[in-house]
């Protein structure tokens, strides 16, 4: 049987900050974000990003957490014994057996975004694999209000994966390809991913190009999350985190609809939750919680 190409698959990787020597650090903390689709582990030395890993979540969450932290520590000489405090977060946060505490992904994302984008960030949109969150926070990264949608696949990375597979376009190319249209089509009218698939099949059959269908879907996704932002009260500065933040097709359409530019970061947008976890861990060490 011919191998089935998995268009949804994105690259897993790890990273280490060459400018930091962990042996010099007073407090080493870790944040593990076990999402339904991806898992990240972040290690921070005195509140500075030292190393992280970003990988796909396996069917067994405790293993995903362990794999992620081990990969983040790879080639650093660190072992779990050197880590003073570990916070687990994300959908699988209760499944991080070696965590000292579990904290919700809402609080961790706000904290992490505050680090990644600076204290001017007030609104964070996290578009993850299986959920979409909008968070309004203060200058310290404390949550003022939030809304989370994890019931419905529309507006999530999973929904985008379904489309990537349907159209035979690699998930990492969806954004770019969706911008290769002469004229911007109207958004796909069905919100539901199941119905949108049927709609897309009909559009392709009626002669639409793959790019045009992708444009219509990216635009529908952007339109959909705007209402979540409106519900919590959109305030600048604005940042987008999560896997979809890497999809220029959704981000540019979202910026256009909101009339607001999203802040840029040099960090991987998928590690906001894990960074927040590691920062919470540091604060908890300083409070003497361990």
């Amino acid at each position, binding site marked *: 049987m011919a191998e089935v190409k998995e268009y949804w698959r994105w690259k897993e990787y790890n990273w280490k900050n060459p400018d930091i020597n962990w042996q010099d650090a007073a407090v080493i903390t870790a944040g593990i974000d076990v999402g339904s689709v991806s898992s990240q582990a972040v290690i921070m030395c005195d509140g500075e990003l030292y190393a992280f890993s970003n990988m796909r979540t396996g069917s067994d969450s405790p293993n995903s957490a362990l794999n992620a932290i081990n990969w983040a520590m790879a080639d650093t000489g660190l072992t779990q014994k050197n880590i003073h405090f570990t916070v687990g977060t994300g959908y699988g946060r209760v499944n991080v057996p070696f965590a000292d505490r579990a*904290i*919700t992904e*809402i*609080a961790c994302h706000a904290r992490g975004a505050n680090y990644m984008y600076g204290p001017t960030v007030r609104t964070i949109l996290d578009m993850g694999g299986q959920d979409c969150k909008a968070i309004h926070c203060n200058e310290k990264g*404390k*949550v*003022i*209000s*939030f*809304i*989370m*949608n*994890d*019931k*419905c696949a*529309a*507006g999530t990375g999973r929904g985008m994966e379904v489309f990537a597979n349907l159209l035979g376009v690699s998930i990492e190319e969806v954004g770019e390809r969706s911008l290769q249209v002469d004229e911007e089509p109207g958004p796909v009218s*069905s*919100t*539901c991913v199941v*119905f949108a698939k049927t709609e897309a099949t009909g559009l392709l059959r009626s002669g639409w190009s793959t790019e045009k269908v992708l444009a219509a879907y990216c635009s529908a996704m952007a339109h*959909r999350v705007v*209402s*979540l932002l409106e*519900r*919590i009260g959109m305030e600048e500065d604005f940042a987008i985190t999560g896997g979809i933040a890497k999809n220029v097709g959704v981000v540019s359409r979202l910026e256009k609809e909101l009339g607001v530019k999203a802040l840029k970061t040099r960090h991987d947008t998928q590690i906001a939750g894990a960074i927040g976890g590691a920062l*919470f861990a540091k604060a908890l060490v300083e409070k003497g919680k361990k």
Partner: protein
Amino acid sequence: MIANYGYKDGSGDFFISIDTDKCIACEDKPCLEACPIKILEKFADDYDDEVVGVKEEHRKKIKYSCAECKPASGERNLACQKVCQPGAIEHSW
């Protein structure tokens, strides 16, 4: 913090929002008992404040969980909202 529990899907927006800053000061939290199907719970949030939230198992189906208090016609009976003295609970639908 204003916590919005629920979801948005193709059929609409279904959120219960709870203003936990108002909730902290409320001693009795009568909403917990008032809800006929007990979808609310008391818990310590990430900032260690004791607040009320919607139970995990109802968050993805509150449109269905709350259906009995919201008949298609006739009077809505949002028991949780009625007993909430600080006015911390709102329904989006």
